[in-house]
């Protein structure tokens, strides 16, 4: 690839991401407020279920001492949604750009990258709001924020890998789209977002919530934002290995399948 193409491709990624962001809330009165209203409504619903219906005790942040369920919930939900919404949107992005793929030669993976970038921007905004909330409730979260940078980078890598693989396969089998709807839901509950995994005395649950890919990310996020603790070295190692492997696999699958997109769409 020549330098000129590389520069042009970076520009394409930038403009496609910008398009994703600009067109997302077009024709809606509340616009970007929706990106906050959605998690807020979920906080209300799950807080009601967790605290009122099940009368559960919120997990205690160690060493932060925080004991507020909505904050615990959001530190898990936001990174998880970054992942799951990115994948869902990416699957649709390849499909909805069928006419472009059939008519213009361009690197198709940028359709997926741009979705992850745009969703990443949303994630950052949400995270900023969450940090403000944490500070209001007395958490000393600020010194821990820089740790979110490598964590988000790894999440982006992992998310991109999954999104590339599924978006490519979905071109050939639409089942992937529907299957992902179910898998995303299973993953949501297999990830410690609405419950405290420590209180469940079951080795399978422990294993899945600790070392399942999404579980591992969310635990790291809890460590940093809720507990105010440095995630363990094993945790980091696990996340690096999983992210790089998934990204490599996704890139490989996408690269194999994308030359046939124009024909199959």
């Amino acid at each position: 690839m020549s330098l000129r193409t590389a520069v042009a491709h970076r520009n394409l990624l930038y403009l496609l991401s910008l398009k994703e962001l600009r067109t997302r809330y077009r024709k809606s009165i509340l616009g970007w407020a929706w990106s906050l209203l959605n998690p807020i409504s979920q906080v209300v619903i799950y807080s009601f279920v967790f605290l009122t219906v099940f009368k559960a005790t919120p997990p205690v942040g160690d060493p932060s001492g925080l004991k507020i369920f909505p904050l615990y919930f959001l530190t898990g939900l936001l990174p998880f949604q970054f992942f799951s919404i990115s994948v869902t949107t990416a699957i649709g992005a390849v499909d909805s750009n069928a006419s472009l793929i059939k008519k213009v030669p361009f690197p198709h993976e940028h359709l997926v990258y741009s979705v992850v970038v745009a969703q990443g921007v949303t994630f950052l905004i949400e995270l900023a709001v969450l940090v403000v909330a944490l500070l209001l409730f007395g958490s000393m979260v600020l010194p821990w924020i820089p740790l979110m940078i490598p964590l988000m980078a790894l999440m982006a890598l992992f998310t991109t890998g999954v999104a590339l693989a599924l978006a490519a396969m979905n071109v050939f089998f639409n089942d992937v789209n529907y299957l992902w709807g179910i898998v995303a839901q299973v993953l949501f509950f297999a990830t410690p977002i609405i419950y405290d995994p420590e209180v469940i005395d079951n080795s399978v649950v422990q294993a899945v919530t600790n070392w399942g890919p999404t579980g591992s990310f969310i635990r790291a996020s809890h460590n940093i934002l809720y507990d105010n603790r440095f995630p363990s070295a094993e945790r980091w190692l696990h996340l690096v290995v999983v992210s790089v492997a998934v990204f490599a696999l996704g890139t490989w699958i996408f690269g194999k399948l994308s030359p046939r997109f124009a024909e199959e769409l």
Partner: protein
Amino acid sequence: MASVLTVDHVSKSFRTQAERVNSLKELVTKRRRNSDVEEFFALRDVSFEVTEGEAFGVIGHNGSGKSTLLKCMAGILQPTSGSVAVQKRMSALLELGAGFHPELTGRDNVFLNAAILGMARREIAARFDEIVDFSGLAEFIDEPVKTYSSGMYVRLAFAVAINVDPELLIIDEILAVGDVTFQQRCMQKFVEFREQGRTIVLVTHDMGSVRNFCDRAIWLEHGEIAGRGDPTDLVDTYTEKMLADAADGQAMQSTRRGSGEIRVEEVELLVDGQPTTHVRTGDTVVVRLHFASDETIENPVFAITIGRLGGAIVTFPSSRDTGEVPATISGSGTVEVRLADIALIPGPHVLHTEVTGFGRQHVFDHIQNAVSFDVLAGDVRETAGIMTMRPTWALSGPGVSGPSPLV
């Protein structure tokens, strides 16, 4: 001359829609029948080379594999076998505005579309004014493109595409967009391109533009190259073939009206004494009518009409015009109408016959579409209009140079 684009033994086959696997279930259940999958070859062993600075035409009717070839050249489709090599920066204009987003403004879409076509941000910024200028949409550029008319949409898209600054431009039938002024501007741009020594591949079924614009051409038929070489000759051969195919497929239904006392029983078209269904511009054609009457007809007038199929009437001569009217006719006989050196422009034509009374008011017999025939290219090279005036041209003046190398 250096080769810019090499298409080397390219074949492209598609599985037919029924055979395509669209869900995981089908993948499992259909696996066993893979041996009898039917393949459809859209391209079969196509090879050619386009050299730097030339305008290369690809002609062929719908379904001949033109679009597949175009997509293979553009890198959108991968050939099943063979290879395509592109040595220069290429821009393929397959569909204008394919990447436009209706909610974004014209300005945003220019940037996005140009990026999709492979331009860096700085290059786009540098050319932005030129693009807007070319499109003539300066006052609407900050409106969302969903508010544009389809003509405006296409103009903006073309303005972007043409300003991508390609060394090799591949164009698909898009010359036929926009109003006349805009089309001229596009054509001008293409000519400019050529003069700058850039290479153009034009895929079209507009014979006129291939003839006027291209240095060389190939003709695709059923995915194979049916001919190649000089565009003028190729277009003539192609047109003849297309007309012959059309004639095989659909002879016009003839209809008859009139009081019927005398009838035209048979109509023949003769060139050099031989019956034919196609003639060439410049041929001398004899139209022979065989008539039969049940009673004695006084002062009958014969007439023929020649017109473009579904179009203008070219000529409508009658035997009364030249005073060839017998006092009476009874029984059977023939009328021969000799048309010397016919000046028709190539294309499908029809001939109607008529027998009337001397006053031309009473119609004994009228046959609409008595004969369909094709006019093929002959001694003139005109393609537009309905007939040729056999023009000769003379240019004079101190500033007029010798013949152009393009002719």
